[in-house]
């Protein structure tokens, strides 16, 4: 009927959001670096039994503290051996499993808790919001490391306990960020339109609100992953995290610290790997924020 001849209406041009996103992703070096490092470490962790040259638990008293190959060692143990003669490269590879598993599962648990609380607070407001805000404040008043230390001291250190403690403690940032994002989105008219259409609350939350706040969620997930990995290393270093002989990067630093003055690579190698992983995850999160931030859209 009206205006089909209007040239303005005939010209629906421009790339789709998906095309724009792809272009921004591949133009962002930090994001590409972060994604690549995390992807490589994930593959290494998954394929650890295939890749590792030795058994990470096999001790050999005759081959203790062999230096790595770049300090005059042999290719038999490319990164040398530790004080019990265990192959350092193999322990490092198996340690990636522990780090990524703790980072991933702890971020997942706290992500589910924090997102549910934050979205509920932001969408329903009122009393729900008051309760959630109170819980967030309570949680922020507790020092994470201290609480984790206390719980691990009572329950004993194990991978499961560390993951559970971190997962149940790191939801605060999820809740804060998701609450703020939801508050922002729920005022948009498309939410009112969906309500006027008669859409159910779960439908509005899942299909109108979530797609518009999920980019913030991804960023917080990466930050909290890095956070959890560092906390695990710190707890293991203090002897309250993963227990020996399980290979963990924090534990390797801890075990090497007595020999640090004579064999500094025992500390430097796991420290450097930890640094690179956390840097990569943070770069990935930073890049994802840059790529998905609305103000960056043209």
């Amino acid at each position, binding site marked *: *009927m*009206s*205006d*089909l001849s*209007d040239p*303005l*209406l*005939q010209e*629906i*041009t*421009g790339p*789709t*959001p998906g095309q724009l996103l792809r272009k921004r992703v591949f133009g962002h070096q930090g994001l590409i670096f972060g994604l690549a490092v995390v992807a490589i470490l994930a593959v290494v962790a998954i394929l650890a039994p295939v890749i590792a040259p030795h058994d990470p638990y096999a001790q050999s008293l005759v081959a203790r503290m062999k230096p790595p190959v770049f300090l005059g060692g042999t290719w038999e143990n490319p990164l040398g051996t530790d004080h019990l003669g265990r192959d350092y490269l193999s322990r490092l590879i198996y340690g990636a499993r522990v780090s990524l598993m703790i980072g991933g599962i702890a971020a997942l648990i706290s992500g589910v808790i924090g997102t549910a609380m934050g979205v509920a607070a932001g969408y329903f407001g009122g009393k729900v919001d008051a309760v959630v805000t109170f819980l967030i404040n309570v949680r922020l008043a507790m020092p994470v490391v201290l609480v984790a230390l206390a719980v691990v001291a009572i329950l004993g250190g194990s991978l499961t306990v560390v993951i559970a403690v971190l997962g149940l403690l790191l939801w605060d940032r999820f809740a804060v960020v998701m609450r703020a994002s939801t508050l922002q989105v729920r005022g*948009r*008219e*498309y939410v*009112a*339109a*969906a*309500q*006027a*259409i*008669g*859409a*159910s609350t779960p*439908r509005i939350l899942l299909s*109108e609100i979530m*797609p*518009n706040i999920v980019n913030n969620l991804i960023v917080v997930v990466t930050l909290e992953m890095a956070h959890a990995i560092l906390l695990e290393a710190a707890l293991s270093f203090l002897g309250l995290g993963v227990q020996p002989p399980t290979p963990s990067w924090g534990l390797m630093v801890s075990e090497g610290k007595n020999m640090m003055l004579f064999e500094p690579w025992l500390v430097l190698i796991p420290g450097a790997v930890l640094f690179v992983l956390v840097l990569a995850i943070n770069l990935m999160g930073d890049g994802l924020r840059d790529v998905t931030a609305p103000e960056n*859209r043209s």
Partner: protein
Amino acid sequence: MNAMSKPDTPVLELRGVSKVYSVKQGLMGARKPLRAVNDVNLTLGRSEVLGLVGESGCGKSTLAKILLGLEAPTSGEVLVDGEAIGSHDRLKLARRIQPIFQDPYSSLNPRKSIAEIISLPLRVHGIGDHASQTKAVREILDVVGLPARVMNTYPSQMSGGQRQRVAIARALIMKPEIVICDEPTSALDVSVQSQILNLLGELRREFGLTYLFISHNLAVVEHLATRVAVMYLGRIVEEAETGALFDASRHPYSRALLDSVLTPEPGLGVPDTHLGAAYPNPINPPPGCAFHPRCASATAFCAARAPRPVASGDGLVECHLYDPETEMFQR
């Protein structure tokens, strides 16, 4: 316009609708009532267009939210086809009343394709399967004057006018009887505004729609509306046929609103409405007639007693100037 006689049952009727919010001032302040909508009575006949005009903050949008079932009125009732609507039959209400919002940049979910946005009402109400929904979207796109190939595009790829057409398509795909247009053109370019207004006019004739047209643009209201209601501080202060209101408005506020319209004549300057810049605080409304502090014709009596609605001609006016009973007190 008079040829359009009022049908027996109004499609939409508001009886004494009020909405009171409880507002907290400051951290420790006590909660105070804010009467956003105060005892509003309105009737809309079939295929009428009621223009609702008033300043920002006078309660127009709150009224729209009540009609859409997004807010429950504190008191009073809303009747659709003579039937009171409750909060329990939101789905039923949604099939009869649909909104068109002000800002097409905010009313379309940026993460959804146009086809998904327009077909959402059908999917929520479980009407038809995927194929028939696609067909319905295609048809409604044709009705609002968009080519079918926009179905797979996203809102960010469209202009404001195109987006507003999508919003109209979404509102009309369920074939509602009443459409609440909340300033549907105020976010658009002037050239696009007229296209959208003409489209709304054509759609009304084609589908026999009834509009509640909320606007602060009097020219738009004069163009489209059959009746006009003027709202001030949550109350309808004057209601009349469009022609009558624009030719001979009675309430001083309506006259001031009409005078405030800028003319294209250069050199005339900004019109003086005697209104001043101060809009009263709705938490502490002035006593008596809420409009008296800004009214050029106000007397001491206006500050003492609130006026009552007086039937005048075909409509209503709520002002002591037109109330024969209070006239003698004023002298």
